[in-house]
């Protein structure tokens, strides 16, 4: 046989594209041709493959070889084509038998013939299952990750030789148990990693900030912490990571897919089981934040999907960097347009931001040394529309000595988390039909339906609208926050006191004028 074809796949943005790797061996001058709109790392595969074949104990006769990657109109990139190309050539040479039709192969080769780890294995295998593929040959380092997909034969290969054996079904497969992952408890056990976050119990004082953090997490609301340096803003944010509700399997796989594409999963942690907490430094670029590249890679906001994106020192971020967050904050996904097409990345995150009230950090204390103009300029670094997308805003005040010396511990993160889980569960049941998950995601009709106000409550909001000069968006943010506060009290109706508390946490849009 002189022609063969092998199924492989590649990641485009977050999508999986299936590629047929074809090889043809014929008599003629001993040249090696590769076609199919290849980027340079794919073109280089030729050299790797030929050398690896030779070094793995196979024969490579002096014949004319043509390799084609189809569809030919799609740009191919990445190093995961090495193994399928080698397989296609060996089959075409007749050195091995053709593998079953429904077998997918991915992997990178070294010159010595060993198979190296590639990224994006989980989404590829998941997609392959949808397509009806029955067997996947993956680098042995990616086996744990690939085995998360049930009802799929996963064979790991550490060398080209092993891969060939696997194709021939000659290889005595190490029995890899497709772990039965059905619920979160099980999920946790599959991952040995235990992440450690600071506990709210160790936080002195700041009862007020804790309360706001609890409400924010319970409803998935965005939170802004304002306060002088050393008031525990960053610690609060890190404590928030410890009270996030657990993930269910669907969410976990959704997140893991993104991490897999970026090569951020390994054998020890094949699955992301904790909600992500991404802390971004203020020098981050736009591309780092929302994703970028000719074929875009997901950015921090997609890595924070279903979790928390923490922006410390908010005014230090470049203004245009923050502005790009506006659309994802509202739509909960980001759409990147490139010459090769549109790429949509999920970005359903909860924003936690921290900032000082003024350059010296002490405003409105008497020892603040900033002029009103400086304070205004500092606060103006963040645009109104951006702040308008923040549901809760609290001030973390300077920690007093009495608090520091206080031996008594506050409520632990564990207890707070229990309440949060309950409230999230309530929301999940309530919004079953709408597909929403949290109060923060309420919009339009759903908002009116689930945040109904009585006459007394309406009057309060009317008053607030004029006294506190709220915007329309600000108004709906108050309703959503009040909904969460009511949920925490297990109250079906939003009452005046809930609205009042929500109003206390509102993002204020005051300006310094006479």
């Amino acid at each position, binding site marked *: 046989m002189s022609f063969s074809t092998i199924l492989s796949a590649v990641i485009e943005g977050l999508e999986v594209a299936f590629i047929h790797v074809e090889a043809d061996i014929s008599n003629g001058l001993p040249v090696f041709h590769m076609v199919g709109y290849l980027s340079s790392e794919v073109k280089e595969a030729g050299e790797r493959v030929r050398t690896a074949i030779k070094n793995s104990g196979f024969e490579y006769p002096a014949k004319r070889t043509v390799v084609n990657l189809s569809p030919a109109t799609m740009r191919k990139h990445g190093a995961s084509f090495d193994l399928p190309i080698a397989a296609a050539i060996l089959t075409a040479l007749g050195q091995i038998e053709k593998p079953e039709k429904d077998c997918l192969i991915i992997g990178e080769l070294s010159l010595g013939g060993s198979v190296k780890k590639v990224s994006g294995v989980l989404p590829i295998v998941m997609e392959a299952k949808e397509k009806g593929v029955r067997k996947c040959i993956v680098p042995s380092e990616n086996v744990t990750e690939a085995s998360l997909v049930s009802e799929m034969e996963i064979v790991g290969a550490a060398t080209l030789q092993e891969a060939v054996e696997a194709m021939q079904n000659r290889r005595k497969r190490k029995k890899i148990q497709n772990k039965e992952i059905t619920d979160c408890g099980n999920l946790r056990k599959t991952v040995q990693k235990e992440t450690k976050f600071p506990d709210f119990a160790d936080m002195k*004082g*700041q*009862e*007020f900030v804790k*309360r706001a953090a609890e409400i924010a997490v319970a409803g998935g609301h965005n939170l802004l912490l*304002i306060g002088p340096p050393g008031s525990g803003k960053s610690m609060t944010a890190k404590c928030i990571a410890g009270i996030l509700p657990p993930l269910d399997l669907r969410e976990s796989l959704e997140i893991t897919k993104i991490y897999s594409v970026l090569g951020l999963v390994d054998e020890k942690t094949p699955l992301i089981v904790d909600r992500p907490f991404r802390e971004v430094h203020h020098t981050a670029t736009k591309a780092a934040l929302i994703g970028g590249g000719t074929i875009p890679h997901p950015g921090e906001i997609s890595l924070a999907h279903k979790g928390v994106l923490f922006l410390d020192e908010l005014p230090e971020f470049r203004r245009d960097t923050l502005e790009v967050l506006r659309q994802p904050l509202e739509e909960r996904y980001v759409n990147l347009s490139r010459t090769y097409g549109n790429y949509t990345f999920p970005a359903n995150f909860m924003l936690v931001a921290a900032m000082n*009230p003024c350059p010296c950090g002490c*405003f*409105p204390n*008497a020892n603040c040394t900033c*002029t*009103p*103009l400086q304070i205004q300029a500092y606060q103006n670094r963040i645009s109104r529309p951006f702040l308008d997308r923040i549901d809760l*805003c*609290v*001030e973390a*005040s300077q920690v*007093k000595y009495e608090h520091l010396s206080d031996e008594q511990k506050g409520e632990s993160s564990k207890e707070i988390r229990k309440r949060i889980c309950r409230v999230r569960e309530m929301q999940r049941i309530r919004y079953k039909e709408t597909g929403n998950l949290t109060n923060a995601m309420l919009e339009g009709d759903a908002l009116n339906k689930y945040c109904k106000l009585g006459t007394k409550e309406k009057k*309060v909001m009317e*008053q*607030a609208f004029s*006294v*506190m000069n709220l915007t329309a968006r600000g108004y709906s943010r108050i309703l959503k926050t009040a909904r969460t*506060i009511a949920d925490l009290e297990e109250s079906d109706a939003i009452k005046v*006191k809930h609205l*009042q*508390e929500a*109003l*206390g*946490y509102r993002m*204020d849009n*005051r300006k*310094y*004028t*006479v």
Partner: protein
Amino acid sequence: MKYEYWFAKIQGINLRKKIRLRQCMKTAEAIYYIEETQLKKIEFLNESEQDKILKAKRQDPEKEYESLCEKGIRFIPHFTDEYPEKLKRISDYPYALYVKGSLPDKAAKKAALVGARRCTPYGEKYAVDFGKVLAEHGVQIISGMARGVDGMGHRGALLGNGKTFAVLGCGVDVCYPREHIGLYVDILEQGGGIISEMPPGTPPFPQNFPARNRIISGLSDVVLVMEAGEKSGSLITVDLALEQGREVYALPGPVNSRMSIGCNELIRQGAGILLSPEMFLEELGLSGKKTEKEGKNKKMLETQEELLYSCLGLYPKSVEEILKETKLEVRQVMEILVSLELRGYIREISKNHYIIV
């Protein structure tokens, strides 16, 4: 008048010399047409000053004066009747005033309201209170339109439907600080005026500000200091006012407040004490009858609200501090704070910092 304006605008000649030169030459027109040889003979002018006059001759007095009139700015030199008499009696009265709007009424009582730019809500509140009550009784408020107490004093006077006058350290057509443009317009709309000794278009140079303070005190009968730090610019105004023989009153403040050190010190040295606008009016000889004391008891507060309200003051307090003092729960405190805020009893001055109104 165009020659007078031309002459007043020449910079770099000492105020006294200017006045003396004009007295010698009788009119500014004569100065404009003076021969160079004759000018050189005037001995109290040095060479550079003579040069400045010669250089200024290149300008067209007619055109300059026309553009001034177009802007609606009045030019009032010291020898006209319109020039405030009170001001002329101070030792270094300005050569001329530029006025947008009107000048203070000669018959009316005039009070200068001065204080720190970076004042506390305490100073802000009383600047507005005094400005308002005094204006309601026909007292005209004069201040510098600066940030802080000055601006609040003007605002108070406007609330009291009174005329108020701002003396600037820049040209009258320059609004400084810029964010006070609303105030600038309101002062003019309500019949007040913007006054300066600087020709129109002069930018706000820092060195001009101490000089304008003498005009603020010079125009008024009494000077009221609302809040002043240890080395506040308001204390310069006070020194000038005392030199000019004006009475000085100061608002007492807490002994531990940095922004009240200057005021308390003034009181120690014998300045008048401001206990309430009404009492001050009586001292001025105007009855303070138009007072409806709005007692706290008028407010219908529940026990917990009362507890919380009583721990707030005019210096901002954070929610964390309130929590500690009242020993209430977070959600209760938030509820009460917002309900008090909605009813207008307290105000959120910065995020989660409250003061009483």
